[in-house]
């Protein structure tokens, strides 16, 4: 295959970046999930959508 260096470089960078970014997303997702109480971890669960609010309500302290 001609120009194999260029071709492998291009494919290599694409796969590496996609994998690294994906791993970053998963890890960040996990650490943020730990930081938030279970009821608020998902848009649907917090009831924001069903209550029809544009921004979910603030918690009462």
């Amino acid at each position, binding site marked *: *295959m*001609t*120009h*194999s260096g*260029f*071709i492998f*470089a*291009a*494919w290599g*960078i*694409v*796969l590496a*970046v*996609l994998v690294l*970014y*994906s791993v970053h*997303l*998963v890890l*960040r*997702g*996990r650490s*943020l*999930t*730990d*930081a*938030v*109480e*279970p*009821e*608020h*971890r*998902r*848009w649907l*669960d*917090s009831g*924001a*959508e069903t209550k029809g609010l*544009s*921004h*979910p309500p*603030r*918690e009462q*302290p």
Partner: protein
Amino acid sequence: MSPAEVTSTGSRGTRVIGSIVLAGIVFHVLLSFVWSDPDADQGDLVRIMYVHVPSAWLAYMAFTVTAFGGVMYLWKRSLWWDLVAGASAEIGVVFCALALVTGSIWGRPTWGTYWEWTDVRIVTTLVLLLLYIGYLAVRRIPADPHQRSRRAAVVGIIAALNIPIVRFSVDWWADRTLHQKATVKLGGTELDGLMLFALFFGLILFTLIYVWMMIHRFRIAWLDEQIDRHGLDAAIAERLAESTSDVTRAVGLTKTGADL
């Protein structure tokens, strides 16, 4: 899934999509390297196109979602749309950078340089990247959520409006009859059937990757919102608790209410 079971931004949906993507990547590698032939004009370099074109396509699609999300946010005032817009912009920047890098790598053996100013697409894509880096910078500015969402929506919409203008300007500007046109058409006069299929498969694969990333990135954005919101509430609650105990001590009361 009940709230207590959520331990990450993943879910059954993302795991299914993820598995399909992994299988798809294997298939795409086979398509691009083993089953398809070199191009009549570009030779083996066409194989870079099988990741370059999908990246560029996704970059533009992601930014369209961002602009659309901005419009929807301004119309419906729904945080959901703003978070979608923001998530899509970040993923779009990733694909845009990939498109530029792969395009540049392809360009080196083709044009002789890593950058060809008269190639309209690469120049426009670079301006697109800069516009969206600016958009992400605006999103990062600490502000009230409504403010931030509104600002970002306006910036996203202007950026999207600007793309056709940039494209047109650069196209015109780059059209120098003195120079040879830099863009090389794929497959010479017509695209070989398998090549076309490889391109489309790449497009679908990358779209699925985008969807997977969007689900995660949206959930991350949502969690960030929650932490901002409840982080503030927790801090307030702490301060209240502190001051209450200060008052209790000052007044000399113990838990039983007896005087000290």
